[in-house]
């Protein structure tokens, strides 16, 4: 199968939908009594009933939601559980959540639908057909992705709410038939069905077995949000107690009888193949049982092709022995032709390709660009760039596999369990049904754990060794063999008239990924020309929390700040003047200014900066306060305002904003992967630093439930911190930061010059 492009996928999806004739029962297609055998354990106790793909009701009236999204820290199982429980009118005190298995029934068709159709709205009558199409395509593509800040707004809105409401309707119907009274006289509350007139009150469990003969509606009636009791309220996360006593089992904590451990390495320069290997010293280490060559393999999925290049692993009775022995291997890697490439050369290439405008493609063109610039009273320009970034999840990549008798089992933490199962099956030469995948809560994901290379390596190791093997990447391997947030360069021009009105905005950047709208601006600038050139590099690309927004948020919100100062206006007021037609953006920005006391004076050496960024369906404004002392920046305070439409789990939303901001702050302050001699120069947290306690600012978050369509939570906090920080530095020092990370610069040194940093 070739690489799926957005266009190709849509075409296939629609075609399949038409071929299916619109009569497909989806999403909730699984019927009690018709379960595949792997679901049997999910039935729980003897009297438990799987009344719906996503819902089990036990005889003691405990209700369990099977959540098809993975937990990587974001608390998604609690928030999706809230959405289901709300529509089901479930008793939250007797409501449990567990992750659904990696089976086709739990393909996240709704995530794929939303991702691929990019927010296109369909009339209600068409939804069953469209869902049918996507369910089939998602199933056949093994799509079960947690990412793109999608879980609540797709699986939650489209699947969890539907499952809850449809099951409640079936329970009402079952009670009406049993009690022989009209449905309209029956109500539900706290997992009970009630009839006020007769005083009857029965637990849902009393009717669970009757649901077996009923077909759930795909278009049930939803609650009026004004009646919500669970959604939008604070429900403590259910996964947290096991995270404070060490009892939660990450995939790293899997222990199997006769299990061996392995450490792995690839070539320093990406893409090289193994020519020869001297493993004599490694094999001499106590405890080493094997040295295994893992040949290159490639798999494709919706997130792109994953090329897992040649690797060498040492297998031992201890991870420590394996990793110590790994350091003694003497591999000879092939010459790729990239051995002399450095970061400087990559940026020089970007510079050339932007200047040459080779095959420039456009995201948005409006107005007469040439005229605007040629007749302008004033034109400013600026070049920005950002480096490659690694993900550095706290839990290093790992997977445990066992391959025996024509079947395989794998224990892993990943953002696409069905996809990983398919990919592991493919390299083992098996059918997906021969592979059982156990997905664990992840110690961070940030996009890295959507790439299956580490699971594929573990599977090959287990197959070759014939015993269970736990593969753990060293932190050095994790930093040097990532799929990186790309390095990007971005060139801007802006034109003003004689009255300092911003007339035109021109932007050319290198290498476009997702989301498509990331480089666009919300401001009413009459003439715009935003586009990009392709400038390929040998460093592998990966989705990194907020993907293209992570760089474009910094670029566009810094350059609009430059425009404001050029126009001689306050950066907040300048933005306000360009948002007359965007009331939601305006409200978010204004709230941030109010909460931060934007207009209040600051002492010498301190500064304040603002940013506004819509991403993943949510709008975020941030105000950052800094102190610059002896050339170093300290972040004192961050005020963040988000309009996510509705925060399903308000504390979870706040936590995700805090998290996204610190993740972005780490990148803005310290994050830099450099390329030297074709290879990544950094290796661990000593030279790829993260923000720590001392640097972490106080973060205040404000949530505006505007009532608009529900937006994402996991990523929208990240893009706006870098520009708000850089704008605050300008406010404090007069130095314009156009490159990251900040810790490369001595702002004192620069301050005696004029102009910019970088």
């Amino acid at each position: 199968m070739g690489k799926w492009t957005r266009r190709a996928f849509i075409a296939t999806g629609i075609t399949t939908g038409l071929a299916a004739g619109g009569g497909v029962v989806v999403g909730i297609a699984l019927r009690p009594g018709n379960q595949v055998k792997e679901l049997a354990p999910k039935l729980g106790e003897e009297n438990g009933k799987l009344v719906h793909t996503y819902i089990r009701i036990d005889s003691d009236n405990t209700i369990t939601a099977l959540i098809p999204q993975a937990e990587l820290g974001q608390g998604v199982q609690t928030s999706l559980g809230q959405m289901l429980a709300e529509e089901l009118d479930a008793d939250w005190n007797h409501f449990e959540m567990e992750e659904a298995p990696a089976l086709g029934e739990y393909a996240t068709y709704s995530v794929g639908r939303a991702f691929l159709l990019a927010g296109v709205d369909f009339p209600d009558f068409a939804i069953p057909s469209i869902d049918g199409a996507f369910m089939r395509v998602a199933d056949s593509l093994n799509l079960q992705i947690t990412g793109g800040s999608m879980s609540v707004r797709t699986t939650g809105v489209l699947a969890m709410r539907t499952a809850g409401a449809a099951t409640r309707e079936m329970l009402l119907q079952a009670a009406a038939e049993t009690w022989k009274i009209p449905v309209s006289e029956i109500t539900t509350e706290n997992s009970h069905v009630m009839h006020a007139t007769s005083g009857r009150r029965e637990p849902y469990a009393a009717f669970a077995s009757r649901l077996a003969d009923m077909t759930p509606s795909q278009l049930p009636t939803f609650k009026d949000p004004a009646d919500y009791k669970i959604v939008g309220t604070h429900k403590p996360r259910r996964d947290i107690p096991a995270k404070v006593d060490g009892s939660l089992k990450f995939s790293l904590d899997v222990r199997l009888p006769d299990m061996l451990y392995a450490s792995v390495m690839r070539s320093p320069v990406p893409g090289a193949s193994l020519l020869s290997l001297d493993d004599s010293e490694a094999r001499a280490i106590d405890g080493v049982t094997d040295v295994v060559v893992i040949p290159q393999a490639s798999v494709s999925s919706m997130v792109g092709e994953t090329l897992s290049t040649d690797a060498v692993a040492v297998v031992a009775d201890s991870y420590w022995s394996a990793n110590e022995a790994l350091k003694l291997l003497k591999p000879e890697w092939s010459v790729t032709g990239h051995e002399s490439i450095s970061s400087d050369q990559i940026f020089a290439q970007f510079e050339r390709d932007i200047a040459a405008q080779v095959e420039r493609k456009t995201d948005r063109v409006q107005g007469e660009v040439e005229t605007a610039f040629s007749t302008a009273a004033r034109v400013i320009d600026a070049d920005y760039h950002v480096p490659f970034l690694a993900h550095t999840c706290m839990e290093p990549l790992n997977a445990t596999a066992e391959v025996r008798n024509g079947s395989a089992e794998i224990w892993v933490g990943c953002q696409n369990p069905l996809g990983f199962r398919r990919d592991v099956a493919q390299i083992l030469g098996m059918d997906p049904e021969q592979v059982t995948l156990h997905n664990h809560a992840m110690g961070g994901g940030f996009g890295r754990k959507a790439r299956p290379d580490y699971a594929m390596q573990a599977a090959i190791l287990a197959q070759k060794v014939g015993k269970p093997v736990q593969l753990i990447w060293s932190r050095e391997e994790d930093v040097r063999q990532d799929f990186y947030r790309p390095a990007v360069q971005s060139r801007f021009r802006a034109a003003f008239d004689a009255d300092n009105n911003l007339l035109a905005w021109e932007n050319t950047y290198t290498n476009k990924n997702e989301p498509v709208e990331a480089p666009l601006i919300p401001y009413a600038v009459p003439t715009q020309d935003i586009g990009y050139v392709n400038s390929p590099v040998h460093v592998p690309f990966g989705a990194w929390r907020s993907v293209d927004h992570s760089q474009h948020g910094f670029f566009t919100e810094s350059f609009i700040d430059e425009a404001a100062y050029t126009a001689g206006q306050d950066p907040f007021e300048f933005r306000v003047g360009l948002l007359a037609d965007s009331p939601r953006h305006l409200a978010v920005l204004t709230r941030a200014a109010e909460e931060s006391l934007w207009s209040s004076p600051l002492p010498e050496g301190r500064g304040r900066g603002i940013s506004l960024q819509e991403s993943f369906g949510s709008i975020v404004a941030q105000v950052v306060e800094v102190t610059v002392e002896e050339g170093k920046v300290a972040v004192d305070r961050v005020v963040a305002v988000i309009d996510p439409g509705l925060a399903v789990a308000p504390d979870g939303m706040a936590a995700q904003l805090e998290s996204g901001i610190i993740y972005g702050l780490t990148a803005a302050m310290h994050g830099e992967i450099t390329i030297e001699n074709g290879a990544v120069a950094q290796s661990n947290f000593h030279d790829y630093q993260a923000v720590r306690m001392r640097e972490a600012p106080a973060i205040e978050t404000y949530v505006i439930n505007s009532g608009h369509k529900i937006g994402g939570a996991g990523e929208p906090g990240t893009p706006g911190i870098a520009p708000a920080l850089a704008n605050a530095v300008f406010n404090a020092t007069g130095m314009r930061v156009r490159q990251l990370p900040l810790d490369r610069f001595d702002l004192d040194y620069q301050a005696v010059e004029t102009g910019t940093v970088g």
Partner: protein
Amino acid sequence: MSTTFWVNGVQQTVDVDPSKPLLWVIREQLELTGTKFGCGIAQCGACTVQIDGQAMRSCVTPVSAVADKRVTTIEGLAPGNGELHPLQQAWIEHQVPQCGYCQSGQLMSAAALLASNPSPNDDEIDAAMQGNICRCGMYGRIRTAIKSVNNVASATEKKLYYSVAGVNHG
């Protein structure tokens, strides 16, 4: 060669290479997996345990160095009888963990701090917690949770982390 030491109040004797780091002895020989591997070079703090009450990075501590010493891991932090350590309770109350992977180490560092300094100020918290990275960025909540244990949080710090405006309209 065998090494004898105490883990969570239980005497343990392991027959391993004396240079093997305590982290891997705890995780592999003793199968106590609450202590995590993060970097292997004492840079991230995920492997933090207490050795005779001091917060130490077990990934760079050879097991020979803990002979006859008392090691406490996250599994031994709670006093027992189903009770949690006050910091564990505070972690739940303030919803500190996101992915949770670093939290064993964070808690062991924080518990060592409070044992020697029941009312730490911000600078003391910074110093004690500087070795523990949280890639989910929950530093603000960690700080507040530490301060809440002996009620040294200010009124501002005790307030909600967020404010919600508007109505529930899905």
